[in-house]
Structure formats: structure tokens, C-alpha cells
């Protein structure tokens, strides 16, 4: 299953940023990977790790700053560091191309580990449920800067480390990151149009996590074998359709996203399964 990711493990190491309160409650050998042995563990509250935390902030800025949704540092602390743990992959500064180091504002320390991906989820009151706070990798903004597949790998291992049973998240309908999650199974749509979010054309989704589906997505990303057939395609730029769908959701009709977006020219469509409860 992880054979395809050999290059990632050759060039990078997994890291976990976790406080002393949270560390004993994590799964330390997710999918057979010994995180303590093969990677490194950092305490985000220790002053000695300030540089790594700053680089993580730079990665987040590069990934989400253009959307106007870069994470304020206090949100990183209050919603990531304290309640949960941050998981991802890092490589030594010396292994990065000069332009990547400039982009991430890495200094001259060749041995400094540089975070290249990160996954943060926040626990919810619902037992076993987590909310996806961040999933990003350097390759999504700097193609070729890090091995391919780091985001998917960070997500798969992070889900196991945190013992996630149900995953929630938000994503913009037009996002090209949608397929990372549709690979894991059909996404139950909670909201289709979300005025309470900065971007109204955001959807909220829910996904029961099955270990076999996570492993299948790692070796064969795309359409999850667990997804039912689509009943129709949604044009994600049709705001009236999103509003109508939101009203149906509030009336009890269920929708699932059953595959990755299909892009043709300026049209983006998403396969949906509509279910009317008996």
C-alpha cells in the first residue's frame, strides 16, 4: 500500500507537533509506520521549536493566504496546538531548492527540518468525530518542491494517529482539493450554501472513516469503491442550484458527493447522489 510513497519516505520524515497532555493519547504506529522511530516529535510549547512553528506558519500562509484564509497564529495555537496535534512531513532545509527556501523564508541552517505538509483536525463533542482544520502541502503551491502525494499521506496517517471515526470538513465547491476527500468515500453534504462562512459557496461535509477505504485511497486514489452511483451532476457555479439544494437539505433530503469534480473548460461539475428518506 505504501510502496507508491517510497520516495516520500526517502526524502522526508513524518513529524508530530503535540503537547504533553495530548501525546499519550495518540496512535504512534499508524498504518505500521513507527512515527517515533522514523520521524520526530516536537513540543509546540517548547521555546526550542519556535523556528519549526514559524516555518509551519509560512507554509500555511503560502497555501491559504491567496484565499484570504491564512490561519492567524492565535487560531493555530488555540484550535490546533492546544486541543489536538499537528501531523505532516518535513525535509531538511539542505535538501530544498534555493527558490523553495526563499519562498518559505528558510534561513541558512542546512539541517533545520522544514515542514512540507500539514494536517490538523479538531476534536468535536460527538464521540470519535473530528473537524478538518487544515490539510496542505507545499506541492499544491510550488509544484515540484516536494515529493508528490504528501497531502494524501499526511491525511491517511493523521486520521489513524488521531483515531478518527467520523471526519467533518468544509471546502469551497470549486476547490481542486475536493478529490483528496472523495477518494476516502462518499461525502455526506451537511450544507451546500453556507452564509455563516466567509465564502458562501462553501459546503460542509461528513465522512465515516473506514480503515480499508483509507488504505484503498492511498494506493488507488480517485472514485471510492464505497460510493453509490451518481443520480445527477451539479454545476457548482449555479448559485440557485446550491440554494435549492441547501433548502432540500434543511427539509431532510440527503445528498452525497460520490466522486471527484469533472472539469471541462470553465464548467466544473460534481457527481451527486440524492436520497429522499422514506
Amino acid at each position: 500500500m505504501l510502496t507508491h510513497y517510497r520516495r516520500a519516505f526517502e526524502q522526508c520524515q513524518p513529524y508530530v507537533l503535540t503537547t504533553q497532555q495530548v501525546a499519550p493519547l495518540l496512535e504512534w504506529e499508524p498504518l505500521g509506520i513507527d512515527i517515533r522511530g522514523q520521524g520526530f516529535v516536537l513540543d509546540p510549547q517548547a521555546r526550542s521549536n519556535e523556528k519549526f512553528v514559524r516555518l509551519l506558519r509560512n507554509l500555511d500562509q503560502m497555501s491559504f493566504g491567496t484565499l484570504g484564509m491564512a490561519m492567524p497564529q492565535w487560531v493555530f495555537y488555540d484550535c490546533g496546538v492546544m486541543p489536538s496535534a499537528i501531523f505532516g512531513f518535513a525535509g531538511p532545509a539542505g535538501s530544498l531548492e534555493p527558490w523553495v527556501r526563499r519562498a518559505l523564508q528558510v534561513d541558512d541552517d542546512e539541517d533545520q527540518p522544514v515542514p512540507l505538509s500539514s494536517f490538523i483536525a479538531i476534536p468535536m463533542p460527538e464521540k470519535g468525530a473530528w473537524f478538518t482544520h487544515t490539510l496542505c502541502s507545499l506541492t499544491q503551491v510550488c509544484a515540484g518542491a516536494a515529493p508528490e502525494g504528501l497531502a494524501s499521506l499526511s491525511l491517511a496517517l493523521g486520521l489513524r494517529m488521531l483515531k478518527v471515526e467520523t471526519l467533518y470538513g468544509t471546502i469551497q465547491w470549486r476547490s481542486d482539493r475536493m478529490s483528496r476527500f472523495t477518494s476516502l468515500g462518499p461525502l455526506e453534504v451537511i450544507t451546500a450554501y453556507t452564509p455563516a462562512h466567509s465564502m458562501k459557496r462553501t459546503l460542509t461535509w461528513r465522512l465515516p472513516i473506514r480503515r480499508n477505504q483509507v488504505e484503498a485511497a492511498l494506493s488507488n486514489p480517485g472514485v471510492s469503491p464505497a460510493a453509490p452511483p451518481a443520480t445527477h451532476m451539479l454545476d457548482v457555479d449555479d448559485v440557485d442550484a446550491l440554494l435549492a439544494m441547501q433548502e432540500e437539505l434543511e427539509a431532510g433530503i440527503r445528498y452525497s458527493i460520490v466522486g471527484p469534480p469533472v472539469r471541462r473548460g470553465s464548467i466544473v461539475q460534481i457527481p451527486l447522489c440524492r436520497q429522499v428518506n422514506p
Partner: protein
Amino acid sequence: MSAFIQQHSAIQRLEPFLIAIPQNRWNLDLEPFGLSIPASNIIDPTRLSSEPFLSLLQTLDARTFGPEGMPMDRWVFYDCCYMPGAIFGFGLRACDLSEDARQLFGVSTDYEGLVPYAMYIAIPMVPEGAWMGHNLASIGPMLPEEGFNGLGSVTKAIALRCFQAERFYGATQWSSKALYVHIKFGPLDLLTAYTPAHSTPETLTYAFEASERSLLSAAGDPTAHFDRPEPEQWVEASDVETMIKLQDRIEAGEQFMIPTRPRRDETGVWVPVCKKPS
């Protein structure tokens, strides 16, 4: 014990409210201290009809935290509060607002719903029963003539009961007036004294057991009090060097507390610190 809370002067004119998605409500106490939250005031943030009230919450936050530069964007409210956590608070019907309050919130004349006067936001942490405090906002200090003294403290106390928090964590600046509220819950364990992972490194991280006595003490119940250790040193809120020395001692394994409230004088804000009794 509940009678003291129910008869608290700050909440007599106000209605309690709760914002939580339906999946999160099962693990919350919907009658904290015997206070019944009207069904119409239990708000689902994923519904279109909730938007006007959620916008007013954002206004309350901006009025409270705008001057400190830490107001929350809508996506932070959605991704870091509504979905993974819960918000408990108190509000007043629009028709009962004073002209000052109406102007403060910018409430339109055709709005007839609830207007939030105080709110407390927290999210669960990985350790069971642990919650991380996120945001305390109250209109009390902005409308001193309206008699809402102590509204912030009593709101936080009832919120922690509503969330069924057993151990509570928070982060605040050494100079923040919020410390006067937090210390009402009893002596605070000091977990970090200098916090570069936060937007403001001069932030401290604290924790306390959210016991019945702690919550009632914060609400002002004279029968609930603590034996507070004597301060051994006073940290001035802008003295970074002392904070770093304290942080180094914490990282070396020493345990400290903030036993009592800060004091302010012409030389600055002074926060008491002592070693944690064994």
C-alpha cells in the same frame, strides 16, 4: 446551588442561547445549573435562517476584540467554533434593546430576534472532558449604565457546565483584563509563561479543574471559595525576560500557579506567581 446562578442579577433580563450543530448536542447539558435554554434559542449554524443572529455574534466579537487586533473572520467562527465546538451565551430581544445597544450592534429596525449580549466559545480537546477556551465576549463593559456587571464571568461559568467540561485550558496575554475573570475559577495552573506559537508570545497558557466549586466561585457565590497560595513573585506584564526565565523553568519540569488576581499600579500590570503546592 443552582438557585444562586438562576438568581444572578446579571442574567435576570436575558435569555440563554446555545449554538451547536445537532450532532454535537448529545454531549452537552441543555439545562446547565437548571437554566432551561428555550428550544428556539438552540441555534443550528448550518441553517440559512440562523445567519442574522450569527452576524450579530460576529459584531459582538468585533466590538470586544477589534481593538486588540484579534477579531475572528467568518471562516474562523465556522471552522473553529460552530462546527467543532459550541457557543453558550445570553441575549436580549431586539424590541427590548436600549438605543445605545441598538447602535452598538447596528441592529436594523426590522430585526425582531435575539441580540447576543455575552458569549463563551470553547472546543473539546483530545483528553476526555478537557476543553479549550476560545473566546469570551460581553457587552457589559461597553454599556456600563445597563447593569451587566459580572455577565462575562457568569456566562463562562454556565457555559463550562453546559459543555460538561471537567478540566479547562485557556491562553491569554499577561496584560489582559480577562485574567481577572479567569482567576475567579480558582488558582490557575501555569502551563506556559512565554508562548512563541501564539500571535503574541507574551501569552500564558493556564488550566483549572472545572468543579462545581470553581464554577460557582466564578459566578460570585460567596459560599464557594478557595484557599489561595501566597504569591512568591510578581511578573510585570511587559517583562519578557522574566517570562522566558519562567518558561525555561517550566520546560525543565517545575510547576507554577497564578494564585490570585493581578494588580495594576502606575508601574504596570503585575501578575502573581507561585510554585504549585505538591
